[in-house]
């Protein structure tokens, strides 16, 4: 029976995720929102498939956060972490300090005693590592200034949880209701009974052990396990590592997330890094999903219905307070150009640690039951709202901001007269740029990423950086003087947008485009952009050519064979385009896209008559014919 219960629960959680997340994704929203929504739906307030005991699941699923920090640690070189120390302690420290003070002051206004007010301030000052980092990773924003600052603050908050856990019993003692010596801190951290210096010593010892093992021992262990060729043992080993560290950290009273993060950083330059990452990732994803679902399920809507005004009022107040403090600090730490808004919106929610801290405070009789219920609800709601805030920032606020900034930024740049404009200067654009430069052409580059500007300028490129889909920057870059525009950017829709704009306003300019796949190519054909290159086709074909050589083809035969294939591909593309024009609905179902593309291509290929190009070089054909001729002659002579 027990197992059945467990499987039923698992079934509900998984089904909710599988149904909701793809729908939300389809709508262009992040997966976090999908999981939260799934949780709300299966929670007691809507379907009631899981009860209020969802918080047990939540505690288990918090391990997902631990795994996430491990993976993030893996991607962070120690030197990079060191260079972030100013933001971690400066920005993070100030954020926790100011937010605590302001929220505590507000709590005082609402008649809370000072010790409770401080506890509430500390609890609500934290932001959600799980939500923010998941969002950042999903959107690839971990590397931008706002993402990095947010990450630093979260890292500091993870460190701050430990002293907060220590302070709460002290604050509770001020109530006079409970003796400090009996506080539950001792139960929480078994070391609590040791003297302070001993605690510190153990802490240092454990951390050094992690660093030592990670640096010198782990490599050999991984190699030994990897050599067995048993992938599941490697998986077991990776999980063992993370769980072991998490346990050790809890034993000495540090946050497990922090410990595994440290281990991740130590392993960041290990050669098994990618293997570890791909092994841990599915567990991380599932557990995090589970975590978000349980947050959604824990939202007590009954309480919300009973006191909607108070709760919503507090919620709005909380987010505004956090937002303002974050925004001001962000500006102070030189975040500009919309990154200040992004940073503040990212961290404006409350943290999953708050759930732990709130129930801990309740156990310590610091907070009464009503306050606890209200706080838990506010925390969960703030986390649920967080993705919506980011959508608001992305869709409504940042277009307005960037329009304003573009104006200021480009007005003082003189427009260019170069005959070639390349939009998007990543790996693809760079090759084209180099080729043109080698042939002594003057090239203007538009890119969103300002990196490498100085180097490129020195070599004679003219650079404009900004959003190429904005007409101003194209005009500013001198598009009216250009002969050709090369759309080499990786962004699918933006490239089409730019093509539309140029076709409409500068029809005389030739457009050359990089296509992500054949459908992208078709979209260009539809816009009458004929010179289109599928981005990986040629390099793949050329590697195929080398494969043929290794299989025994002579170099020239291999070359001819690839030539045939390439020309053939052009014809296939043309045929498929005709099909697509007739019936593009059939083609656009996103998920079926790739397999459909493949089957269409293979089908067309099968129906195609590949002409034996090099038939003339085939000696046998002539030989056979000569033999036939001779046979004919012989027969005739016989008849005579």
């Amino acid at each position, binding site marked *: 029976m027990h197992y059945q219960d467990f499987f039923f629960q698992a079934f509900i959680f998984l089904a909710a995720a599988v149904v909701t997340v793809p729908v939300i994704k389809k709508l262009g929203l992040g997966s976090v929102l999908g999981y939260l929504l799934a949780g709300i739906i299966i929670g007691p307030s809507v379907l009631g498939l899981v009860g209020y005991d969802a918080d047990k699941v939540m505690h288990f699923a918090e391990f997902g956060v631990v795994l996430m920090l491990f993976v993030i640690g893996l991607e962070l070189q120690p030197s990079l972490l060191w260079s972030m120390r100013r933001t971690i302690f400066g920005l993070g420290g100030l954020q926790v300090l100011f937010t605590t003070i302001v929220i505590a002051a507000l709590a005082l206004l609402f008649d809370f005693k000072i010790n409770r007010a401080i506890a509430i301030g500390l609890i609500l000052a934290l932001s959600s590592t799980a939500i923010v980092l998941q969002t950042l990773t999903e959107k690839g924003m971990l590397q931008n200034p706002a993402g990095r600052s947010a990450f630093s603050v979260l890292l500091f908050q993870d460190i701050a949880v430990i002293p907060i856990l220590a302070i709460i019993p002290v604050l509770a003692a001020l109530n006079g209701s409970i003796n400090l010596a009996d506080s539950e801190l001792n139960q929480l951290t078994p070391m609590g009974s040791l003297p302070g210096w001993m605690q510190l010593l153990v802490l240092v010892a454990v951390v050094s052990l992690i660093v030592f093992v990670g640096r010198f021992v782990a490599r050999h262990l991984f190699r030994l396990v990897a050599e067995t060729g048993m992938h599941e043992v490697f998986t077991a080993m990776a999980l063992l590592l993370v769980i072991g560290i998490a346990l050790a950290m809890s034993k000495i009273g540090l946050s497990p997330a922090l410990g595994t993060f440290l281990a991740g950083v130590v392993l960041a330059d290990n050669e098994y890094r990618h293997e570890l990452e791909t092994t841990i990732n599915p567990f991380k994803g599932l557990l995090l999903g589970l975590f978000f679902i349980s947050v959604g399920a824990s939202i007590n809507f009954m309480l919300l219905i009973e006191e909607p005004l108070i709760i919503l009022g507090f919620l709005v107040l909380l987010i505004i307070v956090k937002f303002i403090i974050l925004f001001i600090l962000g500006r102070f730490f030189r975040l500009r150009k919309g990154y200040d808004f992004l940073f503040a919106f990212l961290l404006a929610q409350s943290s999953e640690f708050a759930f732990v801290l709130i129930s801990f405070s309740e156990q310590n009789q610091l907070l009464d039951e009503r306050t606890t219920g209200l706080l838990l609800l506010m925390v969960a709601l703030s986390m649920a709202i967080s993705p919506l805030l980011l959508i608001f920032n992305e869709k409504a606020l940042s277009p307005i901001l960037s329009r304003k900034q573009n104006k200021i930024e480009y007005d003082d740049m003189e427009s260019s007269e170069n005959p070639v404009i390349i939009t998007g200067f990543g790996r693809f654009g760079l090759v084209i740029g180099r080729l043109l430069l080698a042939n002594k052409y003057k090239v203007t580059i538009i890119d969103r990423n300002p990196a490498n500007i100085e180097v490129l300028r020195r070599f004679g490129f003219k650079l404009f950086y900004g959003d190429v889909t904005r007409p101003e920057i194209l005009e500013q870059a001198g598009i009216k003087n250009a002969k050709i525009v090369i759309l080499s950017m990786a962004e699918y829709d933006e490239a089409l947008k730019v093509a539309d704009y140029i076709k409409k306003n500068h029809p005389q300019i030739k457009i050359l485009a990089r296509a992500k796949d054949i459908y992208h190519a078709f979209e260009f054909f539809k816009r009458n952009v004929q010179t289109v290159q599928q981005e990986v086709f040629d390099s793949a074909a050329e590697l195929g050519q080398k494969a043929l050589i290794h299989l025994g083809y002579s170099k020239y035969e291999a070359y001819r064979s690839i*030539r045939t294939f390439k*020309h053939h591909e052009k014809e296939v593309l043309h045929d498929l385009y005709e099909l697509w024009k007739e019936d593009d609905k059939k083609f656009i179902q996103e998920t079926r896209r790739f397999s459909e593309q493949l089957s269409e291509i293979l089908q067309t290929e099968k129906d195609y008559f590949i002409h034996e*190009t090099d*038939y*003339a*070089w085939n000696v046998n*054909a*002539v030989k056979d*014919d000569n033999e036939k*001729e001779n046979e004919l002659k012989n027969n005739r002579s016989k008849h005579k």
Partner: protein
Amino acid sequence: MKKVLVIFAHPAISKSRIHRRLINSVNNQHGITVNNLYENYPDFYIDIIKEQQLLIEHDIIVLQHPLYWYSSPAILKEWFDLVLQHGFAYGVKGKNLVGKQVISIISTGGDKEVYCKEGRNHFTINEFLVPFKQSVNLCGMDYLPPFVIYGSYSLNNTEIEQLNIKYKKLLFGLRDELWENNQLNSAQYFNDILD
């Protein structure tokens, strides 16, 4: 009226003074098709089916190119190798080209005098063109006397203009069947017929 196909091979047309002018003057003229090999097949990947179709559709095939090492630029050789397939152009079943006429239009750097037994090149143009002539004969076609543009480096603008008139007369004349077959076959070089 006959249909004329000019198969043109010049790897650096932008540097050419003579051929570019000649080709441009007949391009898109009624009954004349220009097939610029280097332009159509920059990677030497010759579309054999298309080329064979073109041959079938035309009556007179002009092979126009500068003389490189006493022969044609490389792509025309590739064209011969691949397009004139056994079974299409020659062999028991290869009868598609029988009866068509072929003429070479050649430009040379050297003057007329160096292309003889006593001259620097020791052989005449017709001797150098023997492989072309025999290839054409093997396919059952007539090889007309070639038209040769001698001393191409030293031609001035007026001379090129006069040359262009002759060239047009040649192509349009062939198209419009201006000359009797025995008149064509009796000449050593087409230059003699036009002069």
